[in-house]
C-alpha cells in the first residue's frame, strides 16, 4: 500500500509550482494537482505506486489542466489558448528547473504587497499542501475566514499580476527577509501556542523546517537562510523535553537533556559552525548560535550567551532582546544586576517581562514583590501550560 499521504506532503508543493509555471494560474494548478492525487488514491492501492510518483502526479495534473483548458477554450478564451500552447511545448521535466519553481512560488507567496497573514496562509497552502481547514485551525480563525483570506490573496496575485519569479538581486534582501520571517512565523505558531489541535501544530514545525531545508538547498549562499534553519533545528531538538507527559511546561534549565534529539542538535550545531566560519552574522544566525550554546555540553556557558545577545542587540535593538539578555546576565553577574536591567525596560504589557522579574525577585529573597509579579504574569499569559508553571513557582514563595 503506497503512502499516498506522505507523497502528498512531499510532492504537493513541487507539483503546484510546476503547474503554476506551465499555466500561470494558481487555481488551475491547485485543482489539477488535487485531481491527480484523487486519481492516485483510486489507482495506486490496486496497481501500486508508479516508479516516479512525483513525475506521475505532475504528468497527470498537467494533462488534467490541459483537458480543462481545452474545454474552456472552446468558449473562445484566447488566454486559455495561449497557455495551452505554452504548456504543451514544455517537456515533462521533474528535476532541474522544478527546484527553482518551488523557490519562485515561495517568493510569490511572500510578496511584500501581500499581508503577512496572507503570506503565511498561502505558503502553507501552496507549498505545504495544508488544507484550508488545517490552516484555519492552526491560526485559530474560522474556516470561512481563512478561505476568504486565501481567495483574496490568490485574486491579488492574479489581478495585480504579482510576478511568479525569484526577485532580482537588488530586491532580494527585502524579499528574503519576508520569506524568512514567514517560515519563522509558521514554525513559532507550531512551537509556542498551546491552544488548538496539538498534532497540527507539530505539523507546522515540521513543515517550516522542511521549507527551511528547501530554501537552504536552493539558496546555499545566503547565510541567514542557514541561520534560520539551524535555529529551527535546535529549537525543535528540545521538543520532547519541553513539556511533561501531562503537558506541563518544563523550563530549559530543568529539561532532561537525554530527551533532546541529538541528531537535530548535531545538524544545527554543524550549520552554526559553518556560519561562524563564514563570518557574515545576522539575527537568525546569532539566535541559532545562542541555542547552539544552550545545546552544548551539560551546562550552559552563560558568558558566551551574554556576548551573543550583545551582538544580537546591534541587529535588533528591541526591549525583548534586552530582556532575554538580562536573563543571561542574571547567570553571569547575579539577579540584582539583571533586575536593574529589567526594570529599565518598557514591557509592562508582556507576561514574560513580569515572569522574569518575578524569578529575579524570588532569587533575591524579595518574596512579597515576587508574588505580585507572578500574579501579574499569570493574568497576562494566555497559555494554560505557562500559567500553571508560573503558579507552581509562585506557590514556592514564603507567604
Amino acid at each position, binding site marked *: 500500500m503506497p503512502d499516498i499521504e506522505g507523497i502528498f506532503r512531499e510532492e504537493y508543493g513541487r507539483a503546484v509550482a510546476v503547474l503554476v509555471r506551465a499555466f500561470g494560474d494558481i487555481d488551475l494548478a491547485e485543482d489539477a494537482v488535487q485531481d491527480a492525487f484523487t486519481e492516485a488514491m483510486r489507482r495506486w492501492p490496486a496497481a501500486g505506486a508508479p516508479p516516479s510518483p512525483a513525475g506521475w502526479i505532475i504528468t497527470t495534473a498537467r494533462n488534467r489542466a490541459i483537458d480543462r483548458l481545452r474545454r474552456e477554450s472552446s468558449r473562445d478564451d484566447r488566454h486559455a489558448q495561449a497557455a495551452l500552447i505554452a504548456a504543451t511545448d514544455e517537456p515533462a521535466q521533474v528535476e532541474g528547473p522544478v527546484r527553482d519553481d518551488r523557490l519562485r512560488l515561495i517568493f510569490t507567496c511572500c*510578496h511584500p*504587497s501581500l499581508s503577512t497573514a496572507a503570506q503565511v496562509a498561502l505558503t502553507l497552502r501552496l507549498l505545504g499542501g495544508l488544507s484550508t481547514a488545517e490552516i484555519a485551525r492552526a491560526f485559530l480563525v474560522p474556516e470561512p475566514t481563512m478561505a476568504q483570506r486565501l481567495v483574496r490573496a490568490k485574486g491579488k496575485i492574479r489581478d*495585480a*499580476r*504579482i510576478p511568479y519569479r525569484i526577485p532580482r538581486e537588488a530586491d532580494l534582501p527585502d524579499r528574503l527577509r519576508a520569506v524568512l520571517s514567514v517560515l519563522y512565523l509558521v514554525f513559532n505558531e507550531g512551537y509556542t501556542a498551546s491552544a488548538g489541535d496539538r498534532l497540527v501544530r507539530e505539523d507546522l514545525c515540521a513543515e517550516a523546517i522542511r521549507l527551511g531545508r528547501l530554501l537552504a538547498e536552493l539558496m546555499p549562499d545566503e547565510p541567514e537562510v542557514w541561520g534560520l534553519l539551524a535555529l529551527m533545528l535546535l529549537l525543535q531538538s528540545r521538543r520532547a523535553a519541553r513539556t511533561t507527559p501531562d503537558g506541563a511546561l518544563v523550563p530549559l534549565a530543568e529539561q532532561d537533556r537525554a530527551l533532546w534529539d541529538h541528531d537535530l542538535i548535531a545538524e544545527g550545531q554543524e550549520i552554526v559552525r559553518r556560519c561562524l566560519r563564514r563570518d557574515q552574522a545576522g539575527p537568525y544566525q546569532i539566535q541559532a548560535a545562542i541555542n547552539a550554546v544552550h545545546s552544548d555540553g551539560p551546562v550552559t556557558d552563560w558568558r558566551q550567551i551574554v556576548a551573543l545577545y550583545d551582538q544580537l542587540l546591534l541587529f535588533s535593538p528591541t526591549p525583548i532582546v534586552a530582556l532575554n539578555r538580562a536573563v543571561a546576565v542574571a547567570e553571569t553577574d547575579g539577579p540584582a544586576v539583571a533586575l536593574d536591567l529589567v526594570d529599565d525596560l518598557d514591557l509592562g504589557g508582556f507576561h514574560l517581562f513580569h515572569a522574569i522579574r518575578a524569578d529575579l525577585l524570588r532569587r533575591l529573597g524579595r518574596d512579597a514583590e515576587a508574588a505580585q509579579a507572578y500574579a501579574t504574569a499569570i493574568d497576562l499569559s494566555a497559555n494554560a501550560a505557562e500559567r500553571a508553571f508560573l503558579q507552581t513557582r509562585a506557590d514556592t514563595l514564603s507567604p
Partner: protein
Amino acid sequence: MKKYLLSIYQPDGDPPPPEVLGPIMRDVEAWESEAKAAGAWVFTGRLHPVGTATVLRPDDGGVLMTDGPFAEGKEHIGGFVVIQADDLDAALDWARKATLATTLPIEVRPLHD
C-alpha cells in the same frame, strides 16, 4: 502590458512654499519624462484641493448633494498617474521612483483589462 493607477496622497491644507515645491516639481517632471521615454506613461491628472469636491449620493429616488470629499481625512488624493507595466514589480519600480520624487505616499492599483 497591464495598466496600474498610481494615486498620490497629499496632505490637506496649503501647498508648501515655492522653495520647497520647486525642486519637488522638477523631480516629478524628470520622473514623467523617464516614464514617457520608457513607454510606461499613459496619462496623468492633477486635482484641485479637496475643498473643491462635491459628493452626490442616491437618496430615496433623488440625489443628495453635499459639500466636501467622500471621506474625511488628513490627506486625500491630490493627483494620479496611469502607467502600464509587465507586472506588479515593474509597476512598483515606477511607483517607488514617483514616491521619492513627490515626497508623498502612493497607492498602486491594477486596472481591469
